Protein backbone atom coordinates (compact mmCIF):
# COMPACT_ATOMS: atom_id res chain seq x y z
CA UNK A 1 0.00 0.00 0.00
CA UNK A 2 1.33 3.38 -0.89
CA UNK A 3 0.57 6.80 0.43
CA UNK A 4 1.92 8.77 -2.51
CA UNK A 5 -0.52 9.69 -5.24
CA UNK A 6 0.25 7.35 -8.16
CA UNK A 7 -0.20 9.35 -11.37
CA UNK A 8 0.44 6.56 -13.87
CA UNK A 9 -2.00 4.32 -12.01
CA UNK A 10 -4.65 7.09 -12.10
CA UNK A 11 -4.10 7.39 -15.83
CA UNK A 12 -4.42 3.63 -16.30
CA UNK A 13 -7.73 3.32 -14.47
CA UNK A 14 -9.33 6.27 -16.25
CA UNK A 15 -10.91 4.10 -19.01
CA UNK A 16 -12.51 1.86 -16.33
CA UNK A 17 -13.98 4.87 -14.58
CA UNK A 18 -15.29 6.37 -17.82
CA UNK A 19 -16.93 3.05 -18.55
CA UNK A 20 -18.68 3.30 -15.18
CA UNK A 21 -19.61 6.92 -15.84
CA UNK A 22 -21.56 5.76 -18.89
CA UNK A 23 -23.88 3.66 -16.74
CA UNK A 24 -24.17 6.43 -14.18
CA UNK A 25 -25.30 8.88 -16.86
CA UNK A 26 -27.71 6.40 -18.48
CA UNK A 27 -29.30 5.49 -15.14
CA UNK A 28 -29.60 9.13 -14.04
CA UNK A 29 -31.14 10.41 -17.27
CA UNK A 30 -33.51 7.47 -17.84
CA UNK A 31 -34.58 7.61 -14.18
CA UNK A 32 -35.13 11.36 -14.50
CA UNK A 33 -37.53 10.90 -17.41
CA UNK A 34 -39.57 8.45 -15.30
CA UNK A 35 -39.49 10.85 -12.33
CA UNK A 36 -40.70 13.80 -14.43
CA UNK A 37 -43.61 11.93 -16.01
CA UNK A 38 -44.70 9.81 -13.05
CA UNK A 39 -44.45 12.78 -10.69
CA UNK A 40 -46.98 14.68 -12.78
CA UNK A 41 -49.25 11.63 -12.79
CA UNK A 42 -49.12 11.45 -8.95
CA UNK A 43 -49.91 15.16 -8.69
CA UNK A 44 -52.92 14.97 -10.99
CA UNK A 45 -54.23 11.82 -9.26
CA UNK A 46 -53.95 13.57 -5.90
CA UNK A 47 -56.28 16.27 -7.16
CA UNK A 48 -58.88 13.66 -8.02
CA UNK A 49 -62.24 14.30 -6.31
CA UNK A 50 -62.37 10.64 -5.24
CA UNK A 51 -61.18 10.59 -1.63
CA UNK A 52 -60.17 6.94 -1.81
CA UNK A 53 -58.01 7.56 -4.86
CA UNK A 54 -56.26 10.66 -3.63
CA UNK A 55 -55.62 9.30 -0.14
CA UNK A 56 -54.23 6.06 -1.59
CA UNK A 57 -51.89 8.02 -3.82
CA UNK A 58 -50.91 10.22 -0.90
CA UNK A 59 -49.86 7.26 1.25
CA UNK A 60 -48.13 5.41 -1.56
CA UNK A 61 -45.97 8.43 -2.35
CA UNK A 62 -45.35 9.12 1.35
CA UNK A 63 -44.25 5.51 1.83
CA UNK A 64 -41.85 5.59 -1.12
CA UNK A 65 -40.43 8.95 -0.07
CA UNK A 66 -39.82 7.89 3.54
CA UNK A 67 -37.97 4.66 2.80
CA UNK A 68 -34.35 4.39 1.61
CA UNK A 69 -33.30 3.65 -1.95
CA UNK A 70 -31.09 0.64 -1.20
CA UNK A 71 -33.82 -1.61 0.29
CA UNK A 72 -36.12 -0.34 -2.45
CA UNK A 73 -33.55 -1.49 -5.00
CA UNK A 74 -33.45 -4.91 -3.33
CA UNK A 75 -37.23 -5.04 -3.39
CA UNK A 76 -37.50 -4.29 -7.10
CA UNK A 77 -34.53 -6.43 -8.09
CA UNK A 78 -35.31 -9.51 -5.98
CA UNK A 79 -39.07 -9.42 -5.41
CA UNK A 80 -40.26 -8.79 -8.96
CA UNK A 81 -38.53 -12.00 -10.21
CA UNK A 82 -40.24 -13.89 -7.36
CA UNK A 83 -43.50 -12.66 -8.89
CA UNK A 84 -42.39 -13.91 -12.30
CA UNK A 85 -41.08 -10.64 -13.75
CA UNK A 86 -37.35 -10.91 -14.36
CA UNK A 87 -35.51 -7.67 -15.11
CA UNK A 88 -31.86 -6.77 -15.45
CA UNK A 89 -30.06 -4.87 -12.71
CA UNK A 90 -29.70 -1.68 -14.75
CA UNK A 91 -33.42 -1.68 -15.57
CA UNK A 92 -34.27 -2.33 -11.93
CA UNK A 93 -31.99 0.53 -10.93
CA UNK A 94 -33.52 2.96 -13.42
CA UNK A 95 -37.07 2.07 -12.37
CA UNK A 96 -36.32 2.37 -8.66
CA UNK A 97 -34.44 5.65 -9.00
CA UNK A 98 -37.19 7.07 -11.22
CA UNK A 99 -40.09 5.96 -9.02
CA UNK A 100 -38.32 7.12 -5.85
CA UNK A 101 -37.72 10.60 -7.21
CA UNK A 102 -41.18 10.81 -8.78
CA UNK A 103 -42.50 11.25 -5.23
CA UNK A 104 -40.29 14.32 -4.89
CA UNK A 105 -41.15 15.80 -8.27
CA UNK A 106 -44.83 15.26 -7.40
CA UNK A 107 -44.44 17.63 -4.42
CA UNK A 108 -42.65 20.12 -6.66
CA UNK A 109 -45.43 20.10 -9.26
CA UNK A 110 -48.01 20.38 -6.48
CA UNK A 111 -46.31 23.46 -5.05
CA UNK A 112 -45.93 24.89 -8.55
CA UNK A 113 -49.64 24.47 -9.24
CA UNK A 114 -50.67 26.01 -5.93
CA UNK A 115 -48.39 28.97 -6.73
CA UNK A 116 -50.36 29.80 -9.89
CA UNK A 117 -52.42 32.88 -8.95
CA UNK A 118 -56.08 32.25 -8.25
CA UNK A 119 -57.03 34.91 -10.80
CA UNK A 120 -55.74 32.63 -13.56
CA UNK A 121 -58.24 29.93 -12.59
CA UNK A 122 -61.03 32.48 -12.30
CA UNK A 123 -60.20 33.97 -15.68
CA UNK A 124 -60.25 30.51 -17.25
CA UNK A 125 -63.64 29.85 -15.69
CA UNK A 126 -64.95 33.24 -16.80
CA UNK A 127 -63.88 32.45 -20.36
CA UNK A 128 -65.70 29.12 -20.07
CA UNK A 129 -62.63 27.17 -21.15
CA UNK A 130 -63.00 23.39 -21.11
CA UNK A 131 -61.13 21.61 -18.29
CA UNK A 132 -58.50 20.17 -20.62
CA UNK A 133 -57.64 23.62 -21.93
CA UNK A 134 -57.58 25.14 -18.44
CA UNK A 135 -54.89 22.62 -17.52
CA UNK A 136 -52.92 22.38 -20.74
CA UNK A 137 -53.01 26.01 -21.83
CA UNK A 138 -53.34 27.99 -18.61
CA UNK A 139 -52.23 26.22 -15.43
CA UNK A 140 -49.51 23.73 -16.39
CA UNK A 141 -47.47 26.08 -18.61
CA UNK A 142 -47.25 28.58 -15.73
CA UNK A 143 -46.72 25.96 -13.04
CA UNK A 144 -43.98 24.11 -14.90
CA UNK A 145 -42.19 27.34 -15.74
CA UNK A 146 -41.98 28.10 -12.03
CA UNK A 147 -40.65 24.71 -11.06
CA UNK A 148 -37.98 24.26 -13.74
CA UNK A 149 -35.06 25.30 -11.46
CA UNK A 150 -36.27 23.04 -8.63
CA UNK A 151 -36.65 20.15 -11.05
CA UNK A 152 -33.08 20.87 -12.17
CA UNK A 153 -31.94 20.44 -8.57
CA UNK A 154 -33.52 17.01 -8.48
CA UNK A 155 -31.56 15.97 -11.56
CA UNK A 156 -28.39 16.78 -9.61
CA UNK A 157 -29.74 14.92 -6.58
CA UNK A 158 -30.45 11.84 -8.68
CA UNK A 159 -26.97 11.94 -10.15
CA UNK A 160 -25.56 11.97 -6.62
CA UNK A 161 -27.80 9.07 -5.55
CA UNK A 162 -26.88 6.94 -8.56
CA UNK A 163 -23.96 5.22 -6.70
CA UNK A 164 -26.62 3.41 -4.63
CA UNK A 165 -27.18 1.28 -7.71
CA UNK A 166 -23.97 -0.56 -6.90
CA UNK A 167 -25.99 -2.33 -4.20
CA UNK A 168 -27.54 -4.46 -6.97
CA UNK A 169 -24.28 -4.64 -8.95
CA UNK A 170 -24.94 -2.04 -11.61
CA UNK A 171 -21.47 -1.26 -12.99
CA UNK A 172 -21.77 2.48 -12.39
CA UNK A 173 -18.99 4.90 -11.46
CA UNK A 174 -18.39 4.02 -7.80
CA UNK A 175 -18.83 0.31 -8.49
CA UNK A 176 -16.09 0.50 -11.14
CA UNK A 177 -13.83 2.51 -8.84
CA UNK A 178 -14.34 -0.03 -6.09
CA UNK A 179 -13.63 -2.87 -8.46
CA UNK A 180 -10.30 -1.53 -9.75
CA UNK A 181 -9.42 -0.62 -6.16
CA UNK A 182 -10.08 -4.17 -5.00
CA UNK A 183 -8.04 -5.57 -7.88
CA UNK A 184 -4.93 -3.50 -7.17
CA UNK A 185 -5.55 -2.79 -3.45
CA UNK A 186 -5.08 0.90 -4.24
CA UNK A 187 -8.32 2.63 -3.28
CA UNK A 188 -7.09 6.18 -2.74
CA UNK A 189 -6.82 7.15 -6.42
CA UNK A 190 -10.06 5.69 -7.83
CA UNK A 191 -12.29 6.83 -4.95
CA UNK A 192 -10.74 10.32 -4.88
CA UNK A 193 -11.13 10.66 -8.65
CA UNK A 194 -14.80 9.70 -8.41
CA UNK A 195 -15.30 12.17 -5.57
CA UNK A 196 -13.69 14.99 -7.56
CA UNK A 197 -15.82 14.17 -10.57
CA UNK A 198 -18.99 14.35 -8.48
CA UNK A 199 -18.00 17.71 -7.03
CA UNK A 200 -17.07 19.18 -10.41
CA UNK A 201 -20.33 18.03 -12.01
CA UNK A 202 -22.45 19.20 -9.05
CA UNK A 203 -20.83 22.59 -8.79
CA UNK A 204 -21.13 23.26 -12.52
CA UNK A 205 -24.73 22.09 -12.63
CA UNK A 206 -25.74 24.12 -9.59
CA UNK A 207 -24.35 27.21 -11.33
CA UNK A 208 -26.54 26.32 -14.33
CA UNK A 209 -29.56 25.86 -12.03
CA UNK A 210 -28.95 29.28 -10.48
CA UNK A 211 -29.00 30.71 -14.01
CA UNK A 212 -32.32 28.98 -14.63
CA UNK A 213 -33.62 30.47 -11.39
CA UNK A 214 -32.79 33.97 -12.59
CA UNK A 215 -34.25 33.29 -16.01
CA UNK A 216 -37.54 31.91 -14.72
CA UNK A 217 -37.86 34.21 -11.72
CA UNK A 218 -41.49 35.29 -11.45
CA UNK A 219 -41.21 38.26 -9.15
Amino acid at each position, binding site marked *: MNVEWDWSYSWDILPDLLDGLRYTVIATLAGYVIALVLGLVWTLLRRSPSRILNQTVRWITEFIRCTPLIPQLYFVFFVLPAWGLTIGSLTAGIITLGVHYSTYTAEVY*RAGISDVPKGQWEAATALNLPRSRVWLDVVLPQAIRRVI*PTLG*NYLIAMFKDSPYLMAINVAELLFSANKVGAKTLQF*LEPITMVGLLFIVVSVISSILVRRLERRYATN
Partner: protein
Amino acid sequence: MADVLDSYQQWLDGAWVTIKLTLLGGALALGLALIFGLAGTSRHSWVRVLNRVYVEFFRGNATLVLLFWFFYALPLLGLRFTTMFAAILALGLNVGAYGAEVVRGSINAVPKAQYEATVALNFTPYQRMRRVILPQGIALMLPPFGNLIIELMKGTAIVSLVGLVDLTRVSKNIQGSTGQTVAAFSMVLVLYFVIAQILLLFVRYAERRVDRMLGRRPSREPSLGTIAAGAPGAGVGG
Protein backbone atom coordinates in the same frame (compact mmCIF):
# COMPACT_ATOMS: atom_id res chain seq x y z
CA MET B 1 -43.51 -14.70 6.88
CA ALA B 2 -43.28 -16.60 10.18
CA ASP B 3 -39.54 -17.24 9.68
CA VAL B 4 -39.04 -13.58 9.02
CA LEU B 5 -40.90 -12.54 12.17
CA ASP B 6 -39.07 -15.18 14.25
CA SER B 7 -35.85 -13.29 13.60
CA TYR B 8 -37.22 -10.29 15.50
CA GLN B 9 -34.06 -10.03 17.60
CA GLN B 10 -32.04 -9.38 14.42
CA TRP B 11 -34.57 -6.81 13.24
CA LEU B 12 -34.37 -5.01 16.57
CA ASP B 13 -30.57 -4.99 16.55
CA GLY B 14 -30.58 -3.66 12.99
CA ALA B 15 -33.14 -1.00 13.83
CA TRP B 16 -31.02 0.10 16.78
CA VAL B 17 -27.97 0.58 14.51
CA THR B 18 -30.10 2.59 12.06
CA ILE B 19 -31.53 4.76 14.85
CA LYS B 20 -28.13 5.30 16.46
CA LEU B 21 -26.64 6.40 13.13
CA THR B 22 -29.59 8.73 12.53
CA LEU B 23 -29.35 10.39 15.94
CA LEU B 24 -25.56 10.73 16.09
CA GLY B 25 -25.29 11.74 12.43
CA GLY B 26 -28.13 14.20 13.02
CA ALA B 27 -26.39 15.74 16.04
CA LEU B 28 -23.18 16.20 14.06
CA ALA B 29 -25.12 17.60 11.09
CA LEU B 30 -27.01 20.05 13.30
CA GLY B 31 -23.81 21.35 14.91
CA LEU B 32 -22.07 21.77 11.55
CA ALA B 33 -25.18 23.34 10.00
CA LEU B 34 -25.37 26.00 12.73
CA ILE B 35 -21.63 26.79 12.67
CA PHE B 36 -21.24 26.94 8.90
CA GLY B 37 -24.71 28.38 8.30
CA LEU B 38 -24.05 31.31 10.63
CA ALA B 39 -20.61 31.69 9.04
CA GLY B 40 -22.48 32.19 5.77
CA THR B 41 -24.27 35.24 7.18
CA SER B 42 -21.08 36.87 8.45
CA ARG B 43 -20.04 40.37 7.49
CA HIS B 44 -16.46 39.20 6.85
CA SER B 45 -15.96 37.81 3.40
CA TRP B 46 -13.32 35.26 4.48
CA VAL B 47 -15.80 33.71 6.94
CA ARG B 48 -18.37 33.46 4.16
CA VAL B 49 -15.77 31.76 1.94
CA LEU B 50 -15.39 29.13 4.68
CA ASN B 51 -19.13 28.47 4.41
CA ARG B 52 -18.99 28.21 0.61
CA VAL B 53 -16.06 25.77 0.59
CA TYR B 54 -17.68 23.51 3.18
CA VAL B 55 -21.10 23.55 1.51
CA GLU B 56 -19.90 23.02 -2.06
CA PHE B 57 -17.50 20.26 -1.10
CA PHE B 58 -19.78 18.18 1.08
CA ARG B 59 -23.07 18.92 -0.65
CA GLY B 60 -21.52 18.37 -4.05
CA ASN B 61 -20.42 14.86 -3.21
CA ALA B 62 -22.44 11.68 -3.04
CA THR B 63 -22.79 10.36 0.52
CA LEU B 64 -21.71 6.91 -0.56
CA VAL B 65 -18.56 8.29 -2.20
CA LEU B 66 -17.75 10.17 1.02
CA LEU B 67 -18.24 7.02 3.06
CA PHE B 68 -16.00 4.97 0.77
CA TRP B 69 -13.43 7.69 0.96
CA PHE B 70 -13.42 7.71 4.77
CA PHE B 71 -13.51 3.94 4.80
CA TYR B 72 -10.97 2.95 2.13
CA ALA B 73 -8.88 5.97 1.22
CA LEU B 74 -8.19 7.84 4.46
CA PRO B 75 -6.81 4.79 6.31
CA LEU B 76 -4.04 4.76 3.70
CA LEU B 77 -3.09 8.24 4.84
CA GLY B 78 -2.87 6.98 8.38
CA LEU B 79 -6.32 8.06 9.57
CA ARG B 80 -8.20 5.08 10.90
CA PHE B 81 -11.82 5.11 12.00
CA THR B 82 -14.22 2.45 13.10
CA THR B 83 -16.87 1.78 10.45
CA MET B 84 -19.49 3.35 12.69
CA PHE B 85 -17.48 6.54 13.11
CA ALA B 86 -16.69 6.77 9.39
CA ALA B 87 -20.40 6.45 8.65
CA ILE B 88 -21.42 9.11 11.18
CA LEU B 89 -18.77 11.43 9.77
CA ALA B 90 -19.86 10.90 6.15
CA LEU B 91 -23.57 11.34 6.95
CA GLY B 92 -23.08 14.27 9.33
CA LEU B 93 -20.76 16.20 7.00
CA ASN B 94 -23.03 15.63 4.00
CA VAL B 95 -26.36 16.47 5.63
CA GLY B 96 -24.69 19.27 7.62
CA ALA B 97 -23.88 20.98 4.30
CA TYR B 98 -27.56 20.98 3.29
CA GLY B 99 -28.43 22.15 6.80
CA ALA B 100 -25.92 25.01 6.59
CA GLU B 101 -27.74 26.28 3.50
CA VAL B 102 -31.04 26.07 5.38
CA VAL B 103 -29.61 28.02 8.34
CA ARG B 104 -28.07 30.69 6.11
CA GLY B 105 -31.27 31.07 4.09
CA SER B 106 -33.48 31.25 7.19
CA ILE B 107 -31.33 33.83 8.97
CA ASN B 108 -31.24 35.95 5.81
CA ALA B 109 -35.03 35.62 5.54
CA VAL B 110 -35.65 37.26 8.94
CA PRO B 111 -36.95 40.76 8.08
CA LYS B 112 -34.25 43.40 8.07
CA ALA B 113 -36.32 45.69 10.30
CA GLN B 114 -35.89 43.18 13.14
CA TYR B 115 -32.15 43.59 12.89
CA GLU B 116 -32.41 47.37 12.73
CA ALA B 117 -34.65 47.36 15.81
CA THR B 118 -32.03 45.44 17.81
CA VAL B 119 -29.40 47.97 16.79
CA ALA B 120 -31.71 50.82 17.82
CA LEU B 121 -32.23 49.12 21.20
CA ASN B 122 -28.47 48.84 21.63
CA PHE B 123 -28.41 45.02 21.89
CA THR B 124 -25.03 43.34 21.89
CA PRO B 125 -24.38 41.09 18.86
CA TYR B 126 -24.93 38.06 21.12
CA GLN B 127 -28.28 39.33 22.44
CA ARG B 128 -29.30 40.23 18.92
CA MET B 129 -28.75 36.65 17.73
CA ARG B 130 -29.98 34.87 20.82
CA ARG B 131 -33.09 36.95 21.57
CA VAL B 132 -34.33 38.21 18.21
CA ILE B 133 -32.84 36.78 15.02
CA LEU B 134 -32.31 33.12 15.92
CA PRO B 135 -35.78 32.42 17.43
CA GLN B 136 -37.41 33.71 14.27
CA GLY B 137 -34.88 31.94 12.07
CA ILE B 138 -35.51 28.63 13.83
CA ALA B 139 -39.20 28.75 12.97
CA LEU B 140 -38.19 28.93 9.32
CA MET B 141 -35.55 26.23 9.68
CA LEU B 142 -37.68 23.53 11.27
CA PRO B 143 -39.73 22.33 8.29
CA PRO B 144 -36.67 21.88 6.04
CA PHE B 145 -34.78 20.31 8.96
CA GLY B 146 -37.61 17.80 9.21
CA ASN B 147 -37.04 16.84 5.58
CA LEU B 148 -33.30 16.60 6.19
CA ILE B 149 -33.57 14.24 9.17
CA ILE B 150 -35.68 11.91 7.02
CA GLU B 151 -33.06 12.14 4.26
CA LEU B 152 -30.37 11.35 6.81
CA MET B 153 -32.30 8.37 8.17
CA LYS B 154 -32.65 7.07 4.62
CA GLY B 155 -28.97 7.75 3.99
CA THR B 156 -27.95 5.44 6.84
CA ALA B 157 -28.77 2.47 4.59
CA ILE B 158 -25.38 3.02 2.89
CA VAL B 159 -23.59 1.46 5.87
CA SER B 160 -24.96 -1.92 4.77
CA LEU B 161 -22.48 -1.71 1.87
CA VAL B 162 -19.42 -1.41 4.13
CA GLY B 163 -20.35 -4.21 6.51
CA LEU B 164 -22.36 -2.63 9.34
CA VAL B 165 -25.43 -4.68 10.20
CA ASP B 166 -28.21 -2.09 10.00
CA LEU B 167 -31.84 -2.70 9.01
CA THR B 168 -31.01 -3.02 5.30
CA ARG B 169 -28.24 -5.53 5.98
CA VAL B 170 -30.53 -7.52 8.30
CA SER B 171 -33.14 -7.80 5.55
CA LYS B 172 -30.50 -9.10 3.15
CA ASN B 173 -29.23 -11.60 5.74
CA ILE B 174 -32.71 -12.84 6.58
CA GLN B 175 -33.61 -13.09 2.92
CA GLY B 176 -30.47 -15.20 2.46
CA SER B 177 -31.10 -17.51 5.40
CA THR B 178 -34.87 -18.00 5.05
CA GLY B 179 -35.35 -17.53 1.30
CA GLN B 180 -38.44 -15.42 2.11
CA THR B 181 -37.64 -12.67 -0.39
CA VAL B 182 -40.99 -10.89 -0.46
CA ALA B 183 -41.52 -10.96 3.30
CA ALA B 184 -37.98 -9.85 4.20
CA PHE B 185 -37.84 -6.89 1.82
CA SER B 186 -41.42 -5.79 2.56
CA MET B 187 -40.71 -5.94 6.28
CA VAL B 188 -37.62 -3.75 6.05
CA LEU B 189 -39.46 -1.07 4.07
CA VAL B 190 -42.29 -1.03 6.62
CA LEU B 191 -39.81 -0.68 9.49
CA TYR B 192 -38.07 2.27 7.81
CA PHE B 193 -41.45 3.87 7.23
CA VAL B 194 -42.38 3.49 10.91
CA ILE B 195 -39.08 5.06 12.00
CA ALA B 196 -39.65 7.95 9.57
CA GLN B 197 -43.17 8.57 10.89
CA ILE B 198 -41.91 8.63 14.48
CA LEU B 199 -39.22 11.16 13.52
CA LEU B 200 -41.86 13.26 11.78
CA LEU B 201 -43.98 13.27 14.96
CA PHE B 202 -41.08 14.88 16.83
CA VAL B 203 -40.56 17.40 14.03
CA ARG B 204 -44.26 18.38 14.03
CA TYR B 205 -44.17 18.77 17.81
CA ALA B 206 -41.13 21.04 17.57
CA GLU B 207 -42.78 23.08 14.82
CA ARG B 208 -45.93 23.57 16.92
CA ARG B 209 -43.89 24.63 19.94
CA VAL B 210 -41.86 27.18 18.03
CA ASP B 211 -44.97 28.54 16.32
CA ARG B 212 -46.67 28.93 19.69
CA MET B 213 -43.55 30.56 21.14
CA LEU B 214 -43.66 33.16 18.39
CA GLY B 215 -47.46 33.43 18.50
CA ARG B 216 -47.83 32.19 14.95
CA ARG B 217 -50.32 29.93 13.32
CA PRO B 218 -48.67 27.07 11.47
CA SER B 219 -49.39 27.02 7.75
CA ARG B 220 -49.88 23.69 6.05
CA GLU B 221 -49.72 24.68 2.40
CA PRO B 222 -46.56 23.57 0.63
CA SER B 223 -44.70 26.40 -1.00
CA LEU B 224 -41.87 26.20 -3.48
CA GLY B 225 -39.53 27.88 -1.01
CA THR B 226 -39.76 25.23 1.70
CA ILE B 227 -39.54 22.38 -0.77
CA ALA B 228 -36.48 23.83 -2.44
CA ALA B 229 -34.83 24.32 0.95
CA GLY B 230 -35.20 20.69 1.94
CA ALA B 231 -34.38 19.26 -1.45
CA PRO B 232 -31.36 16.98 -1.53
CA GLY B 233 -29.68 18.97 -4.28
CA ALA B 234 -31.10 22.34 -3.54
CA GLY B 235 -29.82 25.61 -2.28
CA VAL B 236 -31.86 28.26 -0.53
CA GLY B 237 -32.21 31.55 -2.35
CA GLY B 238 -30.67 34.69 -0.95
